[in-house]
């Protein structure tokens, strides 16, 4: 592990150094919100952000991805043979990503990168990306990461964790990739003792400011079917308008749809974000839809995040408490409220 101190004065130059090695992405204020964007110049990055409006999951799992192309021309000897669409796997640095979002990628890995199943594009993009995170000194009121097995200073999903200690950043590597990245930076200082001390205080303050927002244990302990049949969904589902906002904003919602688009003699096989909120998501070819009702779809989303996933994988909820869905939901359905209902509700059969 290596560590460095970068003064704020020096920071743009360090960003410039990273940019000279490859693509660098960071939070940029665009229009109304911060979003991750490729930096054209070091000054573009705005680390005073709270979090980006949408999660950075599209670095590895883009909204619309061309997977394969193919020809349907009768005289083409390679007719109907899928050819992988070209991808860019050159190294990139994501600078300023929040610990919760990096943690989310680890949860998503359970779907895209396992012993038996490997999504080649996810895996290669993950490999060629260096995640340089920024700890949250002042978490938002909608944040609840400390209740979701992560935290404002959780370095576990990152390659490097940076902490803003006032006049500069302390950057510590977490992985070998991160160590290489840090060692490549020239002209930086070693971490001054008082900065390291400040870091500890900031961590404590940030974690304490959030406290434990909710307790997941009762949800884990309850029987799945009891929760499934609980009357709470009747209350929760009413206001939902079944848009995909929560799932699209969420860093751990990975579901996708695969579609073919054909024009003339050539076709593309596309992978597109999909959402369990949409009726079409579960619409069978037969015409049957096992989740035809809104209440079933709303239940699915929360049960998947807070019950099915932890039960199946045993590594905590499929939620990192980033609070994006809480902020973005057009009708104020709040996962914290739902989780509380799930943990406290009595299961009286209707």
């Amino acid at each position, binding site marked *: 592990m290596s560590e460095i101190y970068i003064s704020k004065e020096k920071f743009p130059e360090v960003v410039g150094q990273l940019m000279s090695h490859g693509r660098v992405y960071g939070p940029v204020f665009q*229009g109304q919100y911060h979003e991750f964007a490729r930096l054209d110049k070091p000054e573009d990055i705005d680390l005073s952000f709270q979090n980006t*409006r949408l999660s950075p999951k599209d670095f590895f799992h883009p909204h619309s991805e061309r997977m394969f192309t193919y020809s349907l021309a009768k005289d083409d000897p390679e007719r109907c043979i899928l050819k992988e669409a070209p991808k860019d796997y050159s190294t990139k640095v994501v600078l300023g990503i929040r610990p919760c979002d990096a943690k989310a990628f680890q949860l998503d890995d359970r779907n895209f990168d396992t012993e038996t199943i490997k999504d080649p594009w996810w895996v290669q993009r993950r490999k060629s990306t260096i995640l340089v995170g920024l700890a949250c000194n002042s978490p938002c*009121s909608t944040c609840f990461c400390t209740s979701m097995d992560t935290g404002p200073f959780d370095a576990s999903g990152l390659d490097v964790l940076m902490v803003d200690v006032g006049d500069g950043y302390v950057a510590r590597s977490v992985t070998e990739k991160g160590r290489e990245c840090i060692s490549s930076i020239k002209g930086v200082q070693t971490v001054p003792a008082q900065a390291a001390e400040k870091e500890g205080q900031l961590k404590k303050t940030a974690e304490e400011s959030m406290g434990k927002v909710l307790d997941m244990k009762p949800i884990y302990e309850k029987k799945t079917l009891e929760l499934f049949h609980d009357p709470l969904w009747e209350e929760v589902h009413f206001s939902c308008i079944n*848009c*995909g906002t929560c799932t*699209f904003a969420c860093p751990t919602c990975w579901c996708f749809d695969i579609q073919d688009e054909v024009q003339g003699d050539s076709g593309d096989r596309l992978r597109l974000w999909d959402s369990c909120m949409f009726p079409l998501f579960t619409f069978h070819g037969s015409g049957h839809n096992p989740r035809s009702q809104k209440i079933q779809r709303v239940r699915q989303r929360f049960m998947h995040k807070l019950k099915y996933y932890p039960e199946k994988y045993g590594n905590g909820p499929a939620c990192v408490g980033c609070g994006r869905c809480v902020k973005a939901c057009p*009708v104020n359905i709040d996962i914290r409220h739902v989780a509380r209902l799930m943990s406290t509700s009595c299961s009286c059969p209707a």
Partner: protein
Amino acid sequence: MQAYTERIREAAKRLLSDEKVDVVIGFRKGTIPFMNEPYLAKTPEQVDQLVWDGNCGVNLANYLPRRTDRIAVVAKGCDSRNIVEHIVENQIKREQLHILGAPCKGMMDKRRINAELKGREPSSVEETGSEIKIKGQDLDLTLSRSEFLQENCAICIHRNPVIYDDLVGDLVEEQKDVDRYADVRKVEAMSSEDKWQYFDDLISTCIRCYACRNACPACYCPTCFVDESRPQWVGKTIDPTDTRTFHFLRAYHLAGRCTDCGACERSCPVGIKVRQFTKKLEKDVKELFDYEAGINPDMRPALDFHRPDDPQGFIK
């Protein structure tokens, strides 16, 4: 606002206790600032959760189609117009409804207020008649309510419900001399190329979540054209062609039906000004047919009815 809340609770309690209605649709206090949640009260005990303030921008008419029970619903001017639409389009029966009319002075634009807060978080928000007082750590801000209204509310000319059974507050003065279409005229004056660019830029951040469609009370088709899969009419990528197709078709489906309630724009997670599409159509329908959607339950919609004197300038 507190007075509205009390009168809504009072009416809701009475209607439920007297078994005049089966459910009451209103709002309950939200979990974050500048948001309330649509709420369905089924028992007199649940009624105490109902509230009213400047964060009730969601259009409650959206929750009516396909309901078969007897419903009391709180309705602002725009909600009431969408209720009229539903009645005219046979989505709900007038006899099923007990409309609690809520004369409205405009709903607050959470997006612009949040921008004003610059990341500082409110711990308390108090709404007085003309001001919004926001307090929190490093935060003591008083905003003029009229300057932070949703854009559609600022130019609204139907603040009073057009149809109701009870009122939960006194009727308010309607805004006069409002220029509803200044922004539309600006776009109309552009060259074709500039218009194309303007709309492409407008929707460039769209993530195809369909919040605009789903928040819209007039979007109630059992299967939306976007969700047709046999055949699939619209591509679902975020390629500009696909996104454009969605927004254009959605808007045209609302021609002569949109009440400019602003639900679409309010719901957009990435802040797209989706009303720019529907307002142009609203303006055209007004100019061509002198028709405003959702005003009169006894009038057929402009595009649903032919009159011999309808303008036919498009036939060349």
